């Protein structure tokens, strides 16, 4: 657990970067600090491992006052990941990852095998162990940065915009992998970003800061999107917060209607039998493949006939996914599947809307 207790940082030039911050980052959870540029996120983060010394207040890690600990030892017990990765250019990937283990006095062989294990953990092939950082892409370097921070298995991780120097597609991948990793490892993570989407995607708890390092709101992502505390937070969270907020609501109670399906290879007569404008195609395991328009079919069904526009939602997944499935299906019937991807049935846009309305209404009253 990391606890900020009225922490202040005033730089020598008089800038108050952080003014009386009170915040607790609970064990095993991701706490995100988010806010506009210059609001003191980096300063707050770096005060935890004393890369910056606070000018007031206390920071406690597991109820121990960090100011009373040896700074280097404190840092060896915390993973630290920064935006530019900051890999050591003269060391191989494996040696980079082994930095803290070596500082802690692990022997060469143990450090090496730990490096290889972590390389795999962050999704890089073992051959990369003996490469140098300049031979890696930005996304790969950032993975190595995360592996390096995890090497000595620290309970606490500090991450300062670790994914913001890579392109959006890679960022998405890294975020997904990071969440998967965290669900295995359960670290206590303090994560800084200026990107609200990243904040609500990754955070178990999100702290929105305003300039001057003051907390505007601390909440879980759904509450933040659904009930912003004031104009500043509402503005920062963004316009489509209503729609995005659905991503955090589990799907409302839905009763999917059965949906007739055909297999690939079905003949024209079979396809046209239902008389409906759109017909769902599924494979032999009853996994949906796509929609077809029977009126256009003149020969047995082939893959090319499939309309791929519709998304598929998992029953019991988020409202946002269900709504999106209904919106994107050419038939306007959202396809629902079970956890194994097998067809459960479909719901109409009207049914989804009614169910969401009911759920939201229930939450309010």
């Amino acid at each position, binding site marked *: 657990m990391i606890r900020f207790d009225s922490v202040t940082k005033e730089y020598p030039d008089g800038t108050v970067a952080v003014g009386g911050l009170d915040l607790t980052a609970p064990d095993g959870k991701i706490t995100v600090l988010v806010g506009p540029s210059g609001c003191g996120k980096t300063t707050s983060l770096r005060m935890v491992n004393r890369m910056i010394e606070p000018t007031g207040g206390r920071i406690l890690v597991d109820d121990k006052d960090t100011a009373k600990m040896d700074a*280097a030892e404190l*840092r060896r017990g915390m993973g630290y990941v*920064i935006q*530019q990765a900051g890999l*050591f250019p*003269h060391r191989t990937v494996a040696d980079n990852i082994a*930095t803290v283990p070596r500082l802690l006095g692990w022997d060469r062989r143990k450090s090496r095998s730990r490096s290889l294990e972590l390389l795999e953990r962050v999704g890089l092939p073992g051959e990369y162990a003996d*490469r*140098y950082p300049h031979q890696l892409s930005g996304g790969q370097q950032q993975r190595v940065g995360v592996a*390096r921070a995890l090497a000595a298995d620290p309970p606490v991780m500090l991450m300062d915009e670790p994914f913001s120097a890579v392109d959006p597609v890679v960022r998405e991948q890294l975020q997904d992998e990071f969440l998967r990793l965290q669900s295995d490892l359960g670290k206590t993570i303090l994560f800084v970003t200026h990107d609200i989407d990243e904040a609500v995607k990754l955070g178990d708890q999100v702290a929105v800061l305003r300039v001057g390092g003051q907390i505007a709101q601390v909440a879980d992502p759904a509450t933040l999107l659904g009930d912003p505390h004031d104009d500043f937070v509402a503005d920062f969270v963004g316009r489509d917060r209503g729609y995005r907020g659905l991503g955090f609501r589990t799907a409302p109670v839905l009763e999917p209607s059965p949906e007739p399906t055909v297999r690939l290879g079905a003949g024209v007569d079979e396809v046209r039998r239902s008389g409906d404008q759109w017909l769902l195609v599924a494979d032999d395991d009853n996994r949906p493949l796509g929609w077809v328009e029977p009126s256009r079919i003149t020969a047995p069904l082939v893959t090319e006939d499939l309309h791929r526009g519709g998304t598929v939602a998992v029953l019991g997944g988020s409202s946002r996914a269900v709504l999106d499935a209904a919106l994107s299906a050419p038939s306007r019937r959202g396809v629902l599947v079970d956890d194994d991807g097998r067809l459960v049935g479909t719901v109409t846009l009207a049914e989804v809307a009614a169910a969401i309305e009911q759920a939201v209404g229930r939450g309010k009253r």
Partner: protein
Amino acid sequence: MNAVLTWLTDGAHWQGYDGILQRTWEHVWYSAIALAIAAALAIPLGLWVGHTGRARFLAVNLTGALRAVPSLGLLFASIMVLGSRLDGELATLVPTELVLVVLAVPPILAGAYAGVEQVDAAARDAARGMGMRGSEVLFKVELPCALPLISSGLRSAALQVVATATLAAAVGLGGLGRFLLDGLAVRDYAQMAGGAILVAALALLIDLVASTLQRVVVSPGLTGKTDRRDNALRRLKTTAAS
């Protein structure tokens, strides 16, 4: 030109206390002493300046000022001051080494502090953030990353020192400068040209050795020369597989 070749290839000129081998040895010796002293002074100073960021203006001004010192003038001045206080060969050797050290310090110092200064700020930040102490940051990150610039500073110092060590002969010491001065005294131009060629050849040879050494000590991660090794590894693997 033929005369120069004849002089260089005459076996008799290579032998004896005043032969080419002996003079080359002396030349290398004068140069090595000066480089060792200069490196012992300038590298620690440069690392300290680069690591702490302190006294940077001092280092910059010092390198500039030392570069402006005229070697010959310093040589005569220091002989006048020091010569009477030292005995025998030291009376001329110490002033000569002083001149060479003054010549060698600026490039080495500049290489060392610039080498540390140019280390990626993010790498340095990460090093501290992972719990390296000041000296660990210096020796495990900054120094290895500064090696390319430190070694190019050393190489350019070596070239200058080897060329200027010919001055030793002007104050009665040995070294390859002897052939230049002795040749001049008796108007033996073949000997003079031969001496000059020997100095140039020695400088080239030393630079070649230094560049080989540089390749060994500098991490391939810094030079980008990983391709050759990678290719070799790949070839090895494919042969092993087949």
